[in-house]
């Protein structure tokens, strides 16, 4: 029997597709493998995460992302001539922004839309060992936590007048790192206890309430990713 929970919990893509897309994006967008020859795929990979944002009804974030892309595209066109020092720094910032932003959006999308349980089941079907799957799923879960914790600690330290970039830099670092690591470690203990009660240690096959399978859009995105690598391979070894 198939259980159907809240349909919104299902995202558009399968966890496996998401990971493949993240990998492809980091190779071709951040790593800019292939250069000129990949330019069409590059733009597809840049705008695909925005489409995913829209698919999740994140209209505001999606619009801002498009505005940043378009703006930085024209700014970079304007900065093609010989650069002065200030312009060079500006171009650098824009470059980093346009390189990293698509993958950041994608990573955020993945963290937000993938249930840990979904992820583990999908990995299990790919026969990835638990030794990799469990730490990775913890990492995915932990990035937002670290952000929240460090924000709270930052506020607390500001209230005590311990600012970043003050005279005692080591103190500023110590007073932030130590509480952050301490609270993360405690959260980790709780997390392991929770995992224990859910029988992660049993060594039996787990069941998953979400229905994970490849759908049409998964095949489309997977095909796109493979096309990227194949086209890159052609350019690299045959031309």
């Amino acid at each position, binding site marked *: 029997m198939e259980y159907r929970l809240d349909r919104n919990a299902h995202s558009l893509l399968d966890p496996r597709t998401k990971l493949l897309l993240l990998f492809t994006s980091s190779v071709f967008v951040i790593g800019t493998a292939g250069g000129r020859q990949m330019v069409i795929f590059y733009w597809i990979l840049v705008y695909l995460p925005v489409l995913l944002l829209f698919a999740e009804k994140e209209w505001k974030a999606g619009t801002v992302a498009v505005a940043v892309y378009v703006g930085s595209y024209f700014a970079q066109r304007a900065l093609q001539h010989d650069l002065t020092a200030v312009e060079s720094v500006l171009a650098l910032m824009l470059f980093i922004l346009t390189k990293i932003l698509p993958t950041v959006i994608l990573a955020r999308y993945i963290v937000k839309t993938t249930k840990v349980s979904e992820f583990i089941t999908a990995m299990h079907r790919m026969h990835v060992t638990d030794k990799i799957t469990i*730490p990775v799923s913890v990492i995915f879960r932990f990035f937002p936590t670290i952000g929240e914790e460090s924000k709270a600690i930052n506020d607390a330290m500001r209230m005590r007048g311990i600012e970043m970039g003050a005279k005692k830099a080591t103190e500023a670092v110590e007073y932030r*790192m130590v509480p952050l690591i301490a609270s993360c470690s405690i959260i980790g203990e709780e997390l392991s206890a929770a995992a224990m009660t859910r029988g992660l240690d049993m060594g039996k096959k787990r069941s998953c309430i979400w229905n994970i399978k490849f759908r049409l859009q998964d095949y489309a995105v997977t095909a796109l990713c493979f096309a990227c690598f194949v086209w890159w391979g052609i350019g690299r070894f045959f031309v």
Partner: protein
Amino acid sequence: MDNNNRLNAKDLINVGIYTAICAVICCAVAMTGVIPIMMVLLVVFVPLLTGIPYMLFLTKVKKFGMILILNVLMGAFMWLTGMSYYALVVGIVTGLIAEFIYKAGNYKSKKLGVLAYAVSGIYCWANYLGIFLNAEAYFSTRQNFGQEYIDAVTGLLPMWMCPVLLVVDFVCGLIGGWVGTKVLKKHFEKAGIA
């Protein structure tokens, strides 16, 4: 089946947590790499700052494989965030070596822990290998940074800097590990976390 030596969920979750902390610190430091001199100094700051979480992590390590997994994940993270895959390859090797070093002290010795940290931290240096081994390809992907940036970075990184950076990375690893043990003593042992 010998259950005591197998990694259970608790160990794996610990690996995940400390990898996440190290990765966040690396990221925060690496953001400063847009300034050419900082690009070189990354090899100083990353080992210094990740020392604290790493030494705490080592106190939780009691079984073979945990350091290796952390290094593999950090290497994969570096690769995904646009460094070269050298970090992954080097990370696996140094992770294994660190694993054996820490094992030699029965997963207790602090001195060997510091040494293990310094060795495993060499993946940070591996990020530069791309520049040394294939400078042209590396900078061809970074044309938009402006010629000045490229000149500045290549000026700071002539070929002989390669072994120097390795040594610097290792020494900073030792210092970072030592600072880590101090912080551990000062804060975490008192709080009962370590």
